[in-house]
């Protein structure tokens, strides 16, 4: 996608939120989804449209984990490593999961997917869709990462 079409995409997203109260987060979610990141040029464009400074927009982008300044096109597997999944043994799976992910899959830590009674749990987001997995073992987690 070249700069002009990127800017047009962002403009269209901003327009859909013209009547939204507190539109910044909804805009950033849509931009992150459409472009895979919120880069400096986009921050400036959003700032202009919302009558904010770029610093204010950048402050928001950098505060929230969901927004990134660089795109990462790799499939992502979010592994829950919060207390309940720890109690169910997720830490013992981490080393093998990292090995299975290698550089092809981005293995991220998430604090809680709300599947605390059936952990260890993971969410895989990739070309195959967005799927949840629970009651993971070293083998099934490796399979989830393989299929991501």
């Amino acid at each position, binding site marked *: 996608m070249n700069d002009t079409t990127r800017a047009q995409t962002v403009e269209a997203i901003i327009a859909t939120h013209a009547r939204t*109260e*507190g*539109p*910044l*987060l*909804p805009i*950033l*979610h849509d931009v992150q989804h459409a472009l895979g990141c919120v880069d400096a040029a986009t921050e400036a464009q959003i700032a202009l449209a*919302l009558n904010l400074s770029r610093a204010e927009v950048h*402050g*928001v982008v950098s*505060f*929230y*984990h*969901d*927004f990134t300044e660089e795109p990462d096109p790799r499939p992502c597997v*979010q592994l*829950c490593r*919060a*207390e*309940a*999944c*720890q*109690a*169910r043994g997720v830490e013992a799976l981490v080393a093998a999961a990292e090995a299975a992910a290698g550089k092809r899959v981005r293995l991220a830590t*998430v*604090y*809680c*997917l*709300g*599947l*605390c*009674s*059936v*952990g260890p*749990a993971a*969410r895989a987001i990739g070309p195959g869709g*967005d*799927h*949840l*997995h*629970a*009651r993971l073992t070293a083998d099934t987690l490796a399979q989830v990462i393989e299929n991501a």
Partner: protein
Amino acid sequence: MSAVTKTVRIPDDSLSLAVGADALAAAFVAAGCTVERTSSWGMHWLEPLVEVDGVGYGPATPADVAAILDGSSALNIGAIAEHPFIKPQQRLTFARAGRTRPLSLEDYAATGGWAGLHRARAMSGADVIAEVTQSGLRGRGGAGFPAGIKWQTVANAPGTRKYVVCNADEGDSGTFADRMLMEGDPFQLVEGLAIAAHAVGAQTAYIYTRSEYPHAIAKMRAAIIAARDIIAPLHMEVREGAGAYVCGEETSLLNSIEGKRGVVRAKPPLPALEGLFGCPTVVNNVLTIAAIPHILSEGGAAEYAALGVDRSLGTKPIQLAGNIKHGGLYETAFGITLHDLVYAIGGGTASGRPVKGVQVGGPLGAYLAPDQFDIPFDYEAYARADALIGHGGVTVFDDTADMGKMARFAMAFCAAESCGKCTPCRIGSTRAVEVIDRIRHGGAQAADPLSTMPQMHNARKSARSVDEEIALLEDLCETMKFGSLCALGGFAPYPVLSALKHWPEDFTNGDVQ
């Protein structure tokens, strides 16, 4: 195949999907059945749980389909409504769990839906608030503030533009009741919000939930569209968080909706007076709002107030999580003991090993040792034991857990998720991780080089012993407890101090990471 097509019911909440409910449903369709997708009963160890003519089978896989249909399956648990996990519960908020299709307006209306809203709209706002106050309902998010008083404050506040905000940012590990409610009975939340908005005179209601809950977001959005005409003229919208735990704190949640960094605000001013966009705002947890339709139904407030103990009235949806055999959702009146929850209902640990401790109330809740398991589930009783009920999550750990490591994790989590506004939380959590590491390494070998610099007049010049490090940690926890702006820094010391109190050996002899 039998001449009459069988109807089987399979949940479609995200937990069931994570354990293969979609593949199971497809297998039943392929076998010629009609499949109804319902909410989950909350017996998570049995998911995916298939219901055929009221009888349950679980956990089922596509390979079990034939045996389930001819009744020979060994997964048969008998009538679900009579199951020993379900029968003793007092389900008010989760009365529809397992029984209805989440997005069916027909099912919702047939099970008493909208009765509370219709009754409330025939009453004045003041009368609605009086009933909520009379029910004794307290905020279910953790602080336990009386809902009626909060609503009264917003109703009395000057101004015509007011908001109702539902805090559905359920980030605590070990809790999933908000998720289950949004995915399983979204109309109940819509109805509760509509009643709250009517009571306080708000024009707009927001539901702020986490981006980690895509299924809940989709269900809530669909429910709002389906119920648009019923709740009109109220405007209701779902707002998606962006992966910040601290946004579950009400003031940072408000900042987040406004499109700002999710940093907490100093209180006062209370959100009830100056909340979203500076307007009077009710901020209530999902479970608080979801309890409202029942309370506003005929005689509901008195029925609610008759349940529970002392000043903790009504029911509490308790979430049994972590290393527990029978994990899931257990809604019951306040007053139940941890002993009953963990052993009688939960069946002990999933691993079969002895219970070492449980954490009640999420990552900021205290760890309780088995000798405290007789404390009744009650806000004040927990406060007296230096613990908190929080959102009602109970996370069980077996004897392989290293509580020193869990204490370190609590502070590391606080450091990672701190919004950075106040110093005790932002710096204190990082320093606490360092102190815990030093304790677990048997004390510092030498004094901190920073402390020995000439300009550090008040700093100590020699290394501390383990006992001195522990005293330092306790002192730091005290500072965080009383000096932090919000519950993140203010409650992070609870898991640390409780672990230190009950399992000191895990700090001094633990496997150091």
